Structure formats: structure tokens, C-alpha cells
């Protein structure tokens, strides 16, 4: 029985999903997607559908992340792993330039061209796209453009997938960043039992879609795709104030809650490592053993370290209370001043991957509940 196709949406049958990988690889992209690695879902090179997680789902809670098997045949019936897109554009460590010492006392500097292979990411979540937009603002839309970030960002092809199985730690509905993907993608997939409803947003996306053996999506398929997204959104229980918290937080720097959270916080920096928007990094030098060459690198840093705020003999944030307060007042407060919105996209990673299970939604609720007026 013929069904009316819904305008703008295509449908790819489950059995043909491998074709997406093939088309992308033929177009010269390295495909990166979710894989079950060391008990978590990590983004890594994928070449075939069998590489994707299947029949697994994640259980997340404060300080807790476990994969469990499920009966579902779906590839994307899980929320997220510790990584977002951040390591693909802002590398955990990279050499920026190097210097060669000449026998004549001279120094010869060379910028190290960034590695920026054309990369197609399959399985990008709405929260991760929101975070990518923030990292874009920081690294390429400010007064100085970061060439390494820009090179990799330009070479990204983003295949987003609507999120149908948020974890208990997720609160993207509350921050307004998900679970429905609305923009910032090349292709958008919605997974249903029979396959994928697909929408293309960019010229490259249209091009890739045109090479796939799709048919028009039916209204029934669209409805089947829509429902689990809405259910996933409803299932989220954590809430977060969406208003600009800058003034509230900065007027409550002496709130007793900062001391309470500091007594639990290990100042380990896990939250900043898994946060998809944290951008702090440190620079350093590594000379070769023979001393003829030195590499200048940058690597992810964290405001939870002592060295982060060091200036000649003085540490501005010497204790955990000041460091946690710095992280949260920046992420949820002064971020508005810098980037026009909060730095939190509701992915919940900092909650799951905190070894002591600190939940920023609880901390912020406690501070706001008994806040002195801004």
C-alpha cells in the first residue's frame, strides 16, 4: 500500500545503513562513531555498522556509568559516553610550533600544520552540537581565530542522531539544547525499528543523501521517529534554571554551599575533562634529548589545578572551594557575558564522571534556594 511521503524527509531501511558508511568513505571521510570500548561508549574510527553499539544501553547516575545489554536492535538506544565532539576539534594535546636551535645561536621557528583529516562523525547528539557551537564561538568567532581548531572544524561532516534514550543524568530539555536536534548538522537521523528517517541540512548533506538508496519517509515513519524523542524529553527529571545566573552567583560568593561542595570535591578535574564546552588549556615545551629542537605544545587544562591560577609565587585559587566556585560561576554565570548564554548544555557528563558524584544541578539549586539578592 503506497503511503504519502513527507516532504523533506527521506527514509533509509535498516538493512541499507552500511551504505551511509560506504558513501562517506568513498567521499573521502574517515568515519568516526560510537563504539563500545573499555565498558563505555567512545567515539573512534568506524568502518561498518557492526562497529556501532547494538543492544546496549547506558545506566548513568551521579558518579556512575555502566553499560548494560538490552533487547533492542537499535544502534543509538543510549545517551552518551564521556566524550563529545571536543577531542575531534580541540585535541587533548597537540604541538603548535617547534623551534630548531641553529649552531649559530639562531632560532628557527616552524608552525606545525594541524592534522585535520576530513572526518564524518556519526551519532552526534543535540547537546554535543550545542557544545560545538560554543567551542566555535570561543576558538574561531572571537577576535583571534585558532588555526588548528578551524582546520579541523571545517573538515567535519556531522551526522546527528536524535536522542531517544536520555540518561538519568541528562537535563538537555531544561537547558534547551535537546534531545531534538534542530540545527548545526549536515545530516540528521532519527532511528526507528525499520531504519532511519533522514533530513539533510547543508549542501554536503544533500549530496551524501542523494547517493543513498533512500525512499520518501512516510507520515507514519515520521510519527514513529517523533514519539521516542518526546518520551525521552519527558523522562528527564533533572532541572536547571535557564536564566542568566551571573548576578545571582556573583552576589553569593560567600554562600556556605561552596564550602560544603568543596568538602566533597577532590579537585580532580574529571568534570572539566568530560565537559564538552570547557576550553582551558596549558602550554608547555618539550625539548629533544640532544637539545637541538624543542616542541611547544598545548594540552587540556583545568581550573581545578593549582597551576591554573599561578602568577609568580602567588596562587589565586589555592583551595578547592575557590576552584569549584570558579568553575561554576564561570560555566553558569560569567559565560553569559562572554558567549551570550550559559556554558552548560545539559549533557550530564560532569555528574556521571565525578568520582564522588557531585551533581551541579543540586549545587545550583541549593545556592539559588537560599541566595542573597543579586
Amino acid at each position: 500500500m503506497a503511503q504519502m511521503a513527507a516532504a523533506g524527509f527521506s527514509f533509509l531501511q535498516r538493512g541499507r545503513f552500511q551504505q551511509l558508511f560506504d558513501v562517506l568513505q568513498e567521499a573521502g571521510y574517515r568515519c568516526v562513531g560510537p563504539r563500545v570500548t573499555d565498558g563505555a561508549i567512545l567515539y573512534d574510527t568506524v568502518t561498518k555498522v557492526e562497529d556501532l553499539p547494538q543492544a546496549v544501553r547506558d545506566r548513568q547516575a551521579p558518579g556512575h556509568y555502566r553499560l548494560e545489554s538490552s533487547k533492542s536492535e537499535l544502534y543509538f538506544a543510549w545517551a552518551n559516553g564521556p566524550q563529545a565532539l571536543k577531542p575531534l576539534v580541540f585535541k587533548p594535546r597537540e604541538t603548535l610550533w617547534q623551534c630548531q636551535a641553529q649552531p649559530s645561536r639562531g632560532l628557527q621557528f616552524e608552525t606545525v600544520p594541524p592534522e585535520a583529516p576530513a572526518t564524518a562523525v556519526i551519532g552526534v547528539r543535540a547537546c554535543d552540537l550545542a557544545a560545538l557551537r560554543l567551542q566555535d564561538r570561543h576558538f574561531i568567532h572571537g577576535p583571534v581565530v585558532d588555526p588548528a581548531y578551524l582546520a579541523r572544524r571545517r573538515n567535519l561532516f556531522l551526522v546527528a542522531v536524535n536522542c531517544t534514550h536520555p540518561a538519568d543524568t541528562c537535563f538537555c530539555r531544561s537547558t534547551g539544547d535537546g534531545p531534538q536536534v534542530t540545527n548545526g548538522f549536515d545530516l540528521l537521523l532519527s532511528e526507528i525499528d525499520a531504519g532511519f528517517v533522514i533530513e539533510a541540512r547543508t549542501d554536503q548533506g544533500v549530496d551524501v543523501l542523494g547517493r543513498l538508496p533512500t525512499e520518501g519517509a512516510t507520515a507514519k515513519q515520521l510519527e514513529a521517529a517523533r514519539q521516542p524523542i518526546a518520551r525521552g524529553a519527558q523522562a528527564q527529571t533533572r532541572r536547571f534554571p535557564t536564566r542568566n545566573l551571573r548576578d545571582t552567583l556573583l552576589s553569593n560568593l560567600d554562600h556556605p554551599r561552596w564550602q560544603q561542595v568543596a568538602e566533597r570535591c577532590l579537585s580532580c578535574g574529571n568534570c572539566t575533562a568530560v565537559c564538552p564546552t570547557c576550553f582551558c588549556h596549558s602550554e608547555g615545551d618539550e625539548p629533544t634529548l640532544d637539545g637541538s629542537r624543542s616542541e611547544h605544545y598545548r594540552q587540556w587544562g583545568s581550573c581545578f589545578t593549582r597551576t591554573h591560577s599561578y602568577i609568580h609565587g602567588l596562587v589565586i585559587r589555592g583551595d578547592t572551594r575557590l576552584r569549584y566556585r570558579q568553575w561554576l560561576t564561570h560555566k553558569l554565570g560569567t559565560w553569559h557575558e562572554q558567549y551570550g548564554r550559559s556554558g552548560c548544555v545539559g549533557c550530564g557528563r560532569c555528574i556521571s564522571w565525578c568520582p564522588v558524584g557531585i551533581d551541579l544541578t543540586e549545587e545550583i539549586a541549593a545556592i539559588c534556594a537560599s541566595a542573597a539578592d543579586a
Partner: protein
Amino acid sequence: MPSSETFYQAEPYTLHEAEIVERLQESPTIFTLRLRFTDPGIRSAYRFAPGQFNMVYLYGVGEIPISIVSDPEDPFLLDHTIRTVGRVTRGMDRLQAGDRLGVRGPYGRGWPLDKAGGRDVILVTGGLGCAPLVSVINYIIRRREQYGRFVLMQGVKHSDELLWRGKYERWSRMPDTQVMLAADVAGSNWPWLVGRVTALLEQVSIDPMNCIVMMCGPEIMMRTAIENLLQRGVPEEVIWLSMERNMQCGTGHCGHCQLAGKFVCRDGPVFCYQDVKAFLGKKGF
């Protein structure tokens, strides 16, 4: 001529080799390196504004932000005055004329000289905080007639630490220029005040509606001085200060220098008091 802003933006991670033309020992722990880019093309393209800084690189060890002390009218020779405190500065201390460093910059926003015309200019500096203002002094002295009274206040912990004594003596002979020095602890041959730089403020008359104040030094010193100035009716918007925070990139990306919502390396290091007053002296910022 490219502006200092566009000079580095095209390639933020490109360093240029500079040769130490001269090394001056200013005090037992403070020295000045006079640098010149070895590439003539860079030399002629490079411009800076008073109050801006360079990232200066010691081979194999690392980079540090250092303000440019010399005269912006002569960007061919760049003076950087450095105190030996850490790993990089200790290594730089051992360099001699002919040695090479890497330089990228200039970075940051400098002093608001465009707002100083016709006004009395009051500089309040402590310790090595005088360095970022030396280029302002040179700038004003070259255009002395464009400004009102010129008051230079500099404080040091011990009188032995006063740099540029000869320069201060020379500057004090400029027309309508008042040089006021203070040392917390004074040795012999110290004709100036024994006490804090902020005590100098008590001794000077200020026309609050026709002055501009620029300060640099320890934050506690700047806060005390600001308190005095505000009490005397100096408006917040004419008080400017240079802030110091950990800086590694110079481009507003690495995040270390954040002062609440500001990136000190990019939005500063020179700020109007109004823009930073909420966080000045606040523990943790």
C-alpha cells in the same frame, strides 16, 4: 602599515626570532633585555601601543608575558624589563647580548592615551609595576604640551629596588612634572618619602574633574590608592589599572587569565576601574 591588532592575528602561533642587542642589569634581581627582530620585514611591520605585552620565549623552556617598556615611536628596539622569579625568567637572566629569543605579540589593550589629552596625568606604580608605564611616560614626554600636569608616583619595598633613578631625576626636570618616590624601607641616600606609595597621594593636590589616573603594581596598593582617589572625588571612569594574571596564549583562548567574565590578556591588561571593581581584591578572582 598594519595595526598592532592585525599584526599577530593572521598567524597567532608564529614566533619571530629576536636578538638581544643589549642586556642591562637594573638591580640584583631585575634586568632589561633590549630586543630586535632579526627579520627586517618583521621589524618594519611590528607596532605596539603603550601597555601592550609580548609573549617572550626562551628556547626549550617556555614563554612568558612581558610588557614592553620601550618607546612605541621606536618599535625596532623592544625593551623588556624582567624580574627573576621563575623557571623561564631565571633562564633569561643568564642570556647575553647576541643570544636569541622568540617573540610573538603584541597582545592586549594598552593605556587609554586617547582619553588623556588636556588632562592632568597621574601615574601610581609600585615595584616593577612601573615597567608597563614607562612607555606612557616616554609617550607623554614627547608630546608634553598636549597634557596638563604630570605626576609620577612610584613606590618600592626597599630603596635599593628603585629602578631608573637617573630617569626619574631626568623626568622630574621636565616642565610641570612632579616625581614622587617612596620606599617602605629606606637605605642611605634616599631623599624621598619613607612609607607607602599611597602615602604620596596624601601629599599631592588633585583636580578630580580634570585628571586621568593610570596605575600598575600590587593589587593591594592599587586598591588603597583607588580608595583615596574616590574619596577625593576622582570619578571611577578616569581610573585605569593594569592587571596581571596567568597568561599562556595571549589570545583569549587558554582561559588561565580570566577575571570573572574578562580575559585579562585580550580585554586588558589595562582596564578601566569601573570594569573590574567588583572583583578587585575578591579572593579567588
